């Protein structure tokens, strides 16, 4: 389906929904009919904002689901603690409460700066440590090697250095992208 078709279908859906409101509203005079219709329209828009909230929560869940397993487990345990407290206080364990809590926990423990992309997610600190390890390893190999520093080892060092720098840059980009994305989700709530 092309974008144009999709747009037409969306518009048709909106129009038919409004036709539904028009046929459901009633009144004994034109004025009372229009007042009744206005009520229907405002109810419809509030249900739409509810739907938008659910969509945002779904996005948030997708975001959380790409975090590393160990982190999700830790978050789940913390969330369960909070939910138990809330339940004791008489607040039901609702789906949106659960997601909100998870996001707040993300923020509170400073892991909203987690780098991520579609296939992989690694914390910025871990990435940095990994890169430093490779750099030190490369330099050590050259310094302590009985082989001549020039030649293959030198090439290897430059290769490792290049990959490391590229990796740092990519992860820095991921961190900022992740930060923006999370802020967008949170600001929508």
């Amino acid at each position, binding site marked *: 389906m092309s974008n144009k078709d999709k747009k037409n279908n969306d518009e*048709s859906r*909106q129009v038919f929904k409004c036709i539904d409101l*028009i*046929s459901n509203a009633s009144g004994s005079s034109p004025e009372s009919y229009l007042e009744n219709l206005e009520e229907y329209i405002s109810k*419809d828009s509030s249900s739409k904002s509810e739907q938008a909230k659910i969509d945002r929560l779904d996005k948030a869940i997708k975001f959380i689901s790409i975090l590393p397993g160990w982190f999700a487990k830790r978050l789940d345990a913390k969330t369960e603690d909070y939910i138990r407290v809330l339940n004791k206080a008489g607040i039901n364990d609702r789906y949106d409460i659960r997601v909100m809590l998870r996001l707040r926990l993300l923020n509170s423990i400073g892991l909203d700066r987690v780098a991520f992309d579609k296939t992989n997610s690694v914390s910025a600190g871990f990435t940095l440590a990994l890169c430093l390890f490779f750099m030190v390893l490369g330099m050590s190999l050259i310094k302590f090697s009985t082989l001549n520093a020039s030649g293959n080892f030198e090439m290897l060092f430059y290769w490792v250095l290049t990959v490391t720098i590229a990796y740092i840059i990519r992860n820095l980009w991921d961190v900022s992208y992740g930060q923006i994305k999370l802020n967008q989700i949170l600001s929508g709530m």
Partner: protein
Amino acid sequence: MFNSYKNITKGFGARLKEERERLGFSQNALATAIGVKRLAQGSYEKELTSPNVRYLADAARQGVDLFYLLLGKHLNKRILSIEEEQNIEKRVFELIEEYVERSCDGHLSGDSRYILFDLMRKQAFESSDAVADLSVIDFSLYKS
């Protein structure tokens, strides 16, 4: 399946056929005039698929009564003064703007707005305990 919109009153296909015949169109002629294939026109009349807003707007241009087609009733218009009609139309216009802003993120084509305006206006005109339903008047009494 005719399930894209559950909103329209039952018998949409039969009313579409009735309107087409009232206007003197064959299936093929109406389909050509609107710009759809004859098979599509046939499937709308059999309620196998549902038309979109563009189809409805083009059908209205060909003379199809959308109020009857979509809501399944003929307009029994209350007798109103020009000023009353203008006030109602103004209010209807405002309500459509409100709907578009709240539920459609501010975007709705002119055709769609026109369809909604026409239906809302007619439904408001009809809303009354004392509508002027000309169909129930026995004109034979006045012949003599």
